[in-house]
């Protein structure tokens, strides 16, 4: 991701990201930190292809996303990126397993395989006993683990988590962070957005964003140190 500028229209245009360049390598676990309004969520949206930059290049595995059309960008999200959100975004009308299975639906995977892989992933996050429960009957920590399972079910190369522990108590936070560390150990590339400095400090690399710019990047510091 190089020289990213993202402006939101208005007078004057709001420059949420100002000439930001970040490179995240395979297998990294990065914390993106910064106060609210600093542009870190915009950074995540642009990295996750949910939003296109006004200027600059977002390249994923060397593919410039600007050259892809809506279907192809959606395909990148469907196959290679997994999202975890602060508000979980689980669908209440469905069981946990069907919520997780939604992570595979836009790849064109058949329903039987979707359910099998979802059940497996739910067991992996420790919810093997809650497969058919609707999310509304679950605790916050359980819901976020369902959401994590949904982000993992298609085995993405890159997981983006936007304040994944923002709505959780400390015990559930620990469980979710353990999951994220476990994933990292298995080789998944992960970016966690957080304003919680304790969490950020527990991760190998911290990128700090302020006012649309990268204020500091622990990887660069160590390189120069």
């Amino acid at each position, binding site marked *: 991701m190089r020289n990213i500028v993202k402006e939101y229209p208005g007078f004057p245009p709001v420059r949420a990201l100002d000439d930001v360049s970040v490179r995240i390598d395979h297998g990294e676990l990065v914390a993106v930190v910064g106060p609210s309004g600093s542009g870190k969520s915009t950074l995540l949206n642009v990295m996750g292809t949910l939003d296109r930059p006004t200027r600059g290049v977002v390249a994923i595995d060397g*593919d410039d996303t600007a050259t892809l*059309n809506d*279907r192809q960008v959606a*395909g990148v*999200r469907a196959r290679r990126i997994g999202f975890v*959100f602060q508000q979980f975004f689980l669908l209440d009308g469905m069981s946990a397993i069907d919520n997780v299975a939604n992570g595979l639906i*836009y790849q064109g995977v058949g329903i039987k395989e979707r359910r099998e892989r979802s059940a497996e992933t739910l067991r992996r996050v420790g919810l093997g006993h809650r497969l058919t429960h609707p999310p509304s009957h679950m605790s916050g920590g359980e819901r976020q683990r369902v959401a994590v399972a949904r982000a993992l079910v298609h085995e993405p190369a890159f997981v983006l988590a936007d304040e994944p522990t923002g709505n959780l108590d400390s015990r559930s936070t620990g469980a979710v962070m353990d999951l994220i560390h476990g994933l990292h150990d298995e080789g998944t590339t992960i970016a966690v957005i957080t304003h919680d400095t304790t969490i950020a400090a527990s991760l190998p690399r911290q990128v700090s964003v302020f006012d649309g710019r990268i204020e500091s990047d622990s990887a660069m510091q160590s390189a120069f140190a």
Partner: protein
Amino acid sequence: MTATLPQRTSASRLRPSDVLRVGASGPRARKTRTALSALGVSIGIAAMVGVLGLSESSKSALLDEISALGTNLLTVESGVGIGGGDGKFPEGSLAAVNRIETIETASAVHDVEASLLKSEFIPSGQTRGLTVVAASESLLETLNGEVAEGRWLDNATSEYPAVVLGSVAAERLGITTLTQPIYVYVGEHYVEVIGILEEFPLSADLDRSAIMGQQASEAFFESDPSPTTIFARVESGTLDATRDLIPTTADAENPEEVTVSRPSDALEAQAAADDALTTLFLGLGAVALLVGGIGIANVMVIAVIERRGEIGLRRALGATRAHIRRQFLTEAVILSALGGAVGVALGIGATYLYSGLQGWRVIIPGTAAAGGFLAALLIGAAAGLYPAMRAARLAPTEALRA
């Protein structure tokens, strides 16, 4: 490039079966809302299918009646009143009418000045609206009448004091079977009842009469054999021409006093009136359907606003704009299809119920049932179009900013 890097360029895709599944997930999660929004469409469809089914069933009953009666029957009557007519045709007019080449059969009826009573002990004023007429033997054939009990007049019985009762006359006299000889008091004679007729399709006057042979009426009641009404069956296709010929033929001196009418016209007029009413009700059904469609559009617009989070999530999971559009369009069509199916069932049920009560043959026009369902689908698609476009236009980041 596709060959070397298939993973990188493969676009997002949603199976058709999953389009249906995803589209059904919304309605399934909100059952009350689904039922209520489908209800509007189902009322409209039920009204339309019911109206079409009922009108077809009632029309077929009417057409059965018309074809039983025949559309080639003419009733010829002589005027009474201002013109000075006495309501009778000159003697020999039946023979004259029968000589018209395009007339298949013609029969005459004339009134007999005698009261019809159950016995001599009943005061002569209490006729209960029943009359006595004399008719030629061909009358039954000319009118396509049917005998319910006993038999019709023939060569022999036409000369004797015997009567055949119309259906209403028999009922009012309390005569239902003829297993034993039964007599009624006509004028000053007891006369045997030899038959009871079924209802005539359109000659209500004859239903209220006792009918005897012409010879008998002259011999025993000294009645004037001049016809009062002539019924004529006309060769098909010559109706209008024949109709014009009749007045001068039947009464050469006073052709202007002769009125020729076609009884089936009344039934056809009734059918036409029913058609007009059907169109009106169909219009009302269409309005109900439209209102139902607007209801679905309304519910869908609300759903799109409420489910921004879901839309954003689905985009994050890899749904394209087209997938989102298809999901909400499918959802609207599912709602309306549900309403349509229920509506068609209700409409058919109503038709069965009402036709059963009326004793009609049930006719459900297939086009009405299929057309009703199709109309529901179209309404749903139209209603879902705008909300679906709005859902698809929503930027994922905006949708996720809950």
